[in-house]
């Protein structure tokens, strides 16, 4: 690991200020100053020499400001320093937003869930081995313009949705597709003040793979607002993976449904493991609108979700697996007793 300067921040403005002393042109994910909370992504990637920050700003001292869960009639507020295990085990989240609790509970291991913050979780980097392992020279994410070794390499775990000709890395997380499905808003504080954006606008597409988010250097995620809706209780997360536990998803589906007399009044659908960024399938949602929920309508929605899929040599199976995962999630959600 390369040497770095370690500093602690005691409040949000001090953290942002400490991180603002940074060069303007670098993407936030490669800026010389990085925040550290749980450290489960950044220390891993620093040991691999994939990330090379010159300074780490420890934000764990902001626990009292950013570490709480608040549920009201209007929705759910999750502070950025809430740990994955804390949200996964919260009885109110389990009851009123099961897709959130399940997406967190099915991710990583008990140890990692105790450590990783929610703000850091959504910013976790891809598991693409050509990105993580610096002995591969070609990676547009690590080294813009160097090419993409995954396009014609071993790409069994790579994305089929939202990909480009510069990068096909999969977004690996589980929590983010659930946030996308529920239309969460992410709150951000930076050197130029605070802002709030739809979660769907946090992650960028693959046109500039080195630029993963719309965050500016020095901007800190402070939390997530998940609006209450008639669909949040009838929601769940289905995760299909190579082993039963402690593994990233090959195809996952975050689903929330508002059913009236067996018909879909409103559907919210997020997909994980299959896409370049946390994915919300507006196409699948539209396909279900007003339809009775059954195998036919679920299958049609799944077809719509993957209509634009662009598989490569090893990952074509994800199109069919992704469709079946979504069908299963929709039908299971339809059967939920709420």
């Amino acid at each position: 690991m390369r040497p770095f300067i370690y500093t602690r921040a005691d409040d949000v403005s001090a953290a942002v200020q400490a991180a603002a002393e940074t060069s303007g042109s670098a993407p936030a994910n490669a800026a010389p100053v990085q925040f550290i909370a749980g450290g489960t992504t950044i220390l891993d990637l620093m040991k691999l020499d994939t990330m090379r920050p010159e300074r780490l700003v420890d934000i764990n001292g902001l626990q009292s400001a950013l570490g709480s869960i608040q549920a009201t009639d209007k929705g759910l507020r999750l502070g950025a320093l809430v740990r994955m295990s804390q949200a996964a085990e919260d009885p109110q989240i389990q009851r009123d937003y099961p897709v959130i609790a399940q997406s967190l509970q099915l991710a990583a291991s008990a140890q990692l869930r105790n450590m990783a913050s929610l703000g850091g979780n959504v910013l976790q980097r891809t598991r693409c081995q050509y990105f993580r392992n610096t002995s591969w020279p070609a990676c547009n994410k690590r080294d813009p313009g160097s090419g993409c070794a995954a396009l014609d390499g071993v790409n069994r775990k790579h994305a089929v949705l939202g990909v480009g000709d510069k990068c096909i890395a999969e977004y690996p997380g589980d929590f983010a597709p659930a946030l996308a499905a529920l239309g969460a808003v992410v709150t951000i504080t930076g050197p130029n003040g605070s802002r709030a954006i739809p979660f769907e606008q946090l992650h960028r597409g693959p046109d500039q793979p080195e630029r993963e988010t719309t965050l500016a250097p020095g901007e800190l995620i402070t939390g997530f607002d998940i609006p209450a809706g008639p669909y949040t209780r009838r929601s769940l997360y289905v995760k299909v993976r190579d082993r039963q536990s402690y593994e990233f998803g090959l195809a996952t589906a975050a689903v929330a449904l508002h059913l009236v007399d067996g018909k879909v009044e409103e559907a919210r659908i997020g997909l994980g493991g299959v896409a370049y960024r946390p994915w919300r399938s507006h196409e699948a949602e539209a396909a279900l609108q007003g339809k009775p929920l059954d195998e036919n309508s679920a299958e049609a929605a799944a077809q719509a979700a993957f209509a634009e899929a662009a598989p490569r040599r090893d990952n074509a199976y994800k199109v069919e697996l992704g469709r079946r995962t979504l069908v299963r999630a929709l039908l299971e959600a339809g059967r939920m007793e709420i």
Partner: protein
Amino acid sequence: MTHSNDPRGASRRDFFKISASAAAVAPVVASTALHAQPEQKPDPFAPVEVDLVVNGQRRRMALDARTTLLDALRRHAGLTGAKKGCDHGQCGACTVHVGGKRTLSCLTLAVMVREPVTTIEGLAATDGALHPMQQAFIDHDAFQCGYCTPGQIMSAVACVKEGHAGSADEIREYMSGNLCRCAAYPHIVTAIQQAKTQMEG
């Protein structure tokens, strides 16, 4: 893991010698950058103060900021119970408790730790009586080579305390972050079930 990109070209062994001697001459150094003079470029090699409470004992050290909790325990506090398996948070061999929560010490910077740490060395009673989980692992032969065992036991104690040892399936799910290449899993599950009864009884 070698550090061929070490900017000073020093070997890992030399590096530890250097940080050990730096620690000796500068036993306590204030957290660096925030207190540095503005015109001075902060030195990333300057030792930082690490102030840990491990198994009830306070340990203050001046270490390279890169030192993980695992290396601080093993190399600087002489507590070699927590093991370095993958060093990337994938195997669970380094599991310790921080503030009572099971944590991967290899993905934790020592300088960031602010809560008490418990390692496998701190699990037995002061009179030497083994913790019920340690005894259960012996009773059920829940290991072969033993390398993953300290991490398994620390994780298992937390698994019971969290209330996630209600069934064999639940134990398997909540122990999935601890790999055992000898595949002693069936006996580990049985051991946890025995210890749970004793811990809760």
